[in-house]
């Protein structure tokens, strides 16, 4: 250490910090030294403690010490998951560089960067480039792109925990491998918040044979969680996700604090809550804003700026503000509804009281009564410091296919060399040569049957041994499609008189007519015209306006949280004195106990109810929506082996429902066999094949692998003759090419995506150790009611289609 502290670079940074009255945190100086000693690694620190400056200043110090080792051009690539993060980070880095008198250029490059700046960067890259995984892949698709990377010293990945566990993580892993293939000496650094599997996170980021280290900050963030309760338990509904009746409790909190962030889970919720608050307290107009991913970026930038300057009392937002740089004035956070996970809950809480050693204040607002149990569970988890793991994706053939075409569009690639560096990527450790060859085959000849694809020439093998894309049109389509974020078809919303408001799903707008009013970004507007993927609107005075719903964005509860949820429910009837949420809920819980049962930790509850709608079976594993979906179709499949049946399936985070028009033959005699852990994997595989789950997974895969071409908002709808739905292609491939690897991936992702498989097996293990309680209820219970009204639905049937239609027609005649 002492040697390092003598270096000129260290002393410059140290005295610069001193001038500002700061002292480096120990995790910062530790990072600098390890970087100095040629390590790669991962820094784990809570937000607000200057984790950016750990890695960034490490590179600066190294440069100051060895300026000759660095050549002109790109030295540091900084990958961050959010575009909005990059802008503020670049500003912070530029300030440092200017203050210590370094002649470095720090620039941002992402989807928002103007063409003129991008062309300039392509002529001369800045010293530090802040970018996203997608933009990096776009760079790979350019001619002679290697020249930009030849002097890179370090790739840093910010908020790695956020990328890990999504397909964007795999994009990042591949991007690093591609650059490392050019520069074996590249140093790789990750920055992460605390998650349950840090070692694994580091190995996924740096799977190479290099010196690595993990640096953990000792500093901890203090969090204070308070739940807001209505005056009477009856005021809270049994189901729902708005919680409007809580608005009067929220207003005083907004006034008590400088700036409050109000987190909602969906864009639809945030629009509604913005209206609710303004209706409740009109004085707040002008001091409250709304921020979510579908709001125009100019306006979003303005809002972020206004928060920083303390101009706003409150901002209603979604996960769009989960991450980001310090908003100094924010001293309070309100979470409406469930945060769905412990990490997310803590991350959001951490947005308040951002500077070190300040306490984060979080108010939890339930939108229905059962959510109070969830709040109690989160509090317990935070107390015990239990944090979820993030599972990395593996064997994502769709991304591999996309990346190979990206290389072919760019400089071209040699299969042998590419296979070798792809194999090193964590996601593709278990990629076989046959599978890799299949991917090559897929992009050169289309599929397995040579004869079938005579006109397919996407990627062509040239005489020099390189695979390239010949057609300009194919190259262009591919560039537009790079990335793994698959969204619904979106349309821009723009005032007739000029000025963008945001984006909206085509699905929503197609149901509206000219003159209909809807709400976006807190504004009521009226449709004037729809042209070239843009909706032209004018302000509306109409009282009745529709709030759009955006599909997607519904997250399941994490397993970490569900564990605590089961524990809390188990002793819900006898809460200790400090659990005011459970005490408050007592009347409701009593009702559940009287009409049915409250499952103790060693019990598993099934409720059967017959209503006008049909025959319902409710089961409550408390494992999160994804696992319930698989369980539901499995149980439906097993029951339908007793008697041919058709089920509609619903699930939420607490349990699932099977609904049938005919009596469900589940009894105390066979229930243990139906919920048995025997033959689990075999039965799950069969039931997945019989359900629509794989088809839904295929939606994203088809887009990523280039089977479905996405239309960009604001662009003219071109390629009309190439439009098709992923559902259609799924069906066609299932019929004609069942061995297609992308299909296999879709089936795998339903359940082989490790997390779910492990959770599922653990769940059945738990059920087999539990006492199954089968209750016949006369009416919907507090537990079953939310499932009945608020849920996603699917179907599972092993009956002949014509027979079903005949019965439906007969039942209608009755």
């Amino acid at each position, binding site marked *: 250490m002492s040697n390092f502290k003598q270096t000129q670079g260290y002393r410059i940074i140290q005295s610069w910090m001193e001038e500002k009255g700061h002292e480096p945190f120990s995790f910062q100086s530790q990072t600098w030294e390890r970087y100095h000693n040629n390590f790669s690694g991962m820094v784990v620190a809570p937000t607000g403690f200057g984790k950016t400056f750990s890695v960034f200043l490490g590179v600066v110090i190294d440069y100051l010490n060895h300026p000759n080792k660095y050549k002109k051009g790109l030295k540091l690539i900084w990958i961050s998951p959010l575009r909005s993060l990059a802008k503020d980070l670049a500003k912070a880095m530029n300030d440092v560089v200017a203050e210590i008198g370094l002649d470095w250029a720090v620039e941002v490059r992402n989807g928002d960067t103007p063409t003129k700046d991008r062309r300039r960067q392509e002529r001369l890259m800045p010293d530090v480039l802040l970018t996203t995984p997608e933009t990096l892949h776009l760079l790979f698709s350019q001619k002679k792109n290697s020249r930009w990377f030849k002097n890179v010293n370090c790739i840093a990945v910010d908020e790695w925990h956020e990328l890990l566990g999504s397909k964007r993580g795999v994009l990042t892993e591949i991007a690093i491998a591609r650059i490392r293939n050019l520069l074996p000496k590249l140093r790789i650094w990750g920055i992460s918040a605390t998650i349950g599997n840090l070692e694994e996170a580091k190995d996924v980021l740096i799977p190479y044979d290099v010196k690595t280290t993990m640096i953990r900050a000792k500093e901890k963030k203090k969090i204070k969680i308070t739940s807001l309760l209505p005056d009477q338990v009856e005021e809270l509904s049994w189901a729902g996700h708005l919680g409007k009746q809580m608005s009067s409790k929220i207003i005083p909190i907004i006034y008590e604090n400088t700036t409050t962030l109000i987190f909602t889970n969906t864009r639809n919720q945030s629009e509604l809550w913005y209206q609710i608050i303004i209706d409740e307290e009109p004085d707040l107009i002008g001091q409250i804003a709304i921020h979510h991913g579908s709001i125009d970026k100019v306006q979003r930038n303005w809002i972020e700026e206004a928060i920083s300057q303390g101009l706003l009392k409150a901002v209603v937002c979604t996960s769009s503000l989960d991450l980001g740089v310090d908003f100094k004035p924010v001293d309070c956070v309100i979470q409406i509804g469930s945060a769905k996970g412990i990490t997310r809950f803590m991350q959001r809480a951490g947005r308040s009281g951002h500077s070190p050693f300040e306490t984060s204040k979080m108010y939890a607002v339930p939108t229905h009564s059962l959510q109070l149990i969830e709040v109690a569970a989160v509090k317990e988890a935070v107390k015990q410091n239990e944090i979820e793991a993030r599972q990395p994706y593996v064997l994502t053939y769709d991304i591999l296919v996309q990346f190979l075409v990206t290389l072919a569009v760019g400089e071209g690639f040699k299969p042998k060399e590419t296979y070798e560096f792809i194999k090193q990527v964590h996601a593709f450790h278990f990629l076989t040569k046959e599978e890799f060859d299949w991917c090559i085959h897929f992009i050169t000849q289309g599929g397995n049957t040579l004869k079938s694809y005579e006109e397919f020439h996407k990627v062509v093998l040239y005489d020099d041994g390189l695979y390239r894309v010949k057609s300009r049109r194919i190259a262009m389509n591919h560039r537009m499609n790079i990335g793994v974020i698959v969204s619904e078809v979106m349309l821009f919303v723009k005032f007739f008189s000029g000025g963008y408001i945001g984006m909206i799903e085509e699905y929503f707008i197609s149901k509206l007519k000219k003159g209909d009013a809807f709400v976006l970004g807190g504004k009521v507007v009226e449709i004037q015209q729809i042209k070239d993927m843009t909706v032209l609107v004018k302000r509306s005075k109409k009282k009745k306006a529709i709030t759009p719903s955006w599909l997607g964005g519904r997250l399941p509860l994490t397993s970490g949280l569900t564990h605590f949820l089961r524990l809390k429910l188990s002793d819900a009837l006898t809460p200790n004195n400090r659990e005011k949420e459970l005490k408050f809920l007592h009347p409701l819980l009593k009702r559940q106990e009287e009409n049915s049962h409250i499952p103790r930790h060693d019990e598993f509850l099934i409720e059967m109810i017959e209503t006008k709608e*049909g025959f319902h079976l409710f089961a409550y594993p408390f494992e999160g929506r994804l696992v319930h979906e698989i369980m539901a179709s499995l149980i439906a499949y097993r029951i339908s082996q007793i008697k041919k049946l058709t089920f509609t399936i619903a699930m939420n985070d607490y349990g699932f429902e099977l609904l049938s028009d005919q009596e469900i033959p589940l009894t105390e005699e066979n229930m243990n066999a139906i919920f048995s852990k025997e033959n689990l994997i075999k039965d799950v595989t069969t039931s997945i094949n019989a359900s629509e789950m794989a088809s839904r997974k295929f939606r994203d895969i088809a887009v990523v692998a280039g089977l479905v071409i996405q239309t960009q908002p604001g662009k003219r709808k071109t390629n009309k003759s190439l439009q*098709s739905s992923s559902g259609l292609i799924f069906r066609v491939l299932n019929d004609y090419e069942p061995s297609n690897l992308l299909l296999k991936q879709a089936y795998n992702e339903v359940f082989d995506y490790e997390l779910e498989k492990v959770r599922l097996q653990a769940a059945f293990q738990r059920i087999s150790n539990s006492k199954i309680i089968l209750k016949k209820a006369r009416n919907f219970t507090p537990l079953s009611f939310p499932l009945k009204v608020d849920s996603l639905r699917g179907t599972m049937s092993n009956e002949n289609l*014509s027979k079903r239609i005949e019965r439906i027609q007969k039942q209608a005649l009755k």
Partner: protein
Amino acid sequence: MMQNISIISKTIPCNDEVLELTNQRVIYWKTQKSLILSDLHIGKSAHFQKSGIPIPKNVLTTDLKRLKQLIQHFNAENLIIVGDLFHAGYNSDLDEFKDWLTQFSNLKIQLIKGNHDRFSNAICEQFQIEVFKKDYFLNCLKFVHDFKEPSNDFFTISGHTHPGVFIKGKGRQRIKLPCFQVTKNQLILPAFSLFTGLNTRSAPKNCKNYCFTDDGIFEL
């Protein structure tokens, strides 16, 4: 994959004519010995392939095999195609179609041009197809691609929309199926090709839906 199809039909009266709707996406018009169909989209799979999207070509082969069985089953002498016979420009799928045609020496094809049929008339001559730019009239029936306005004197038969319907039943069942949409004075055909989507959002006023499965046809 489909081997032999079962052909189930249901007859409906249209003005003075009798039409036989089948579960195989065509209508048989007995008095004229004609099959009426729409939206074959020949060339769609090859068009996708040309643009770098690998779609198996067997899609077309299967469609044509089904059409052959229908022609033989009904002993049909004419095909009346109400548009979108071809999907895009000339490609190898069209060669396959040409080969397929040679097995029928006496089959007459009449095509009412659809929005996808943007080829030159020379191509049609190669296939010996009689082309109608806008509409075609026979007896009291009028054939167009996309139904625009009702006519009082004729019963109009069209395609274009790829109609589908949802059947809702007890226990929140929802089944989505292709269908024929029939009113007093018009009928919309389902798309013949299996490589097409379904549109459940457009339906004429007061229409009756005839949906079908592999082994049945149902009036809803």
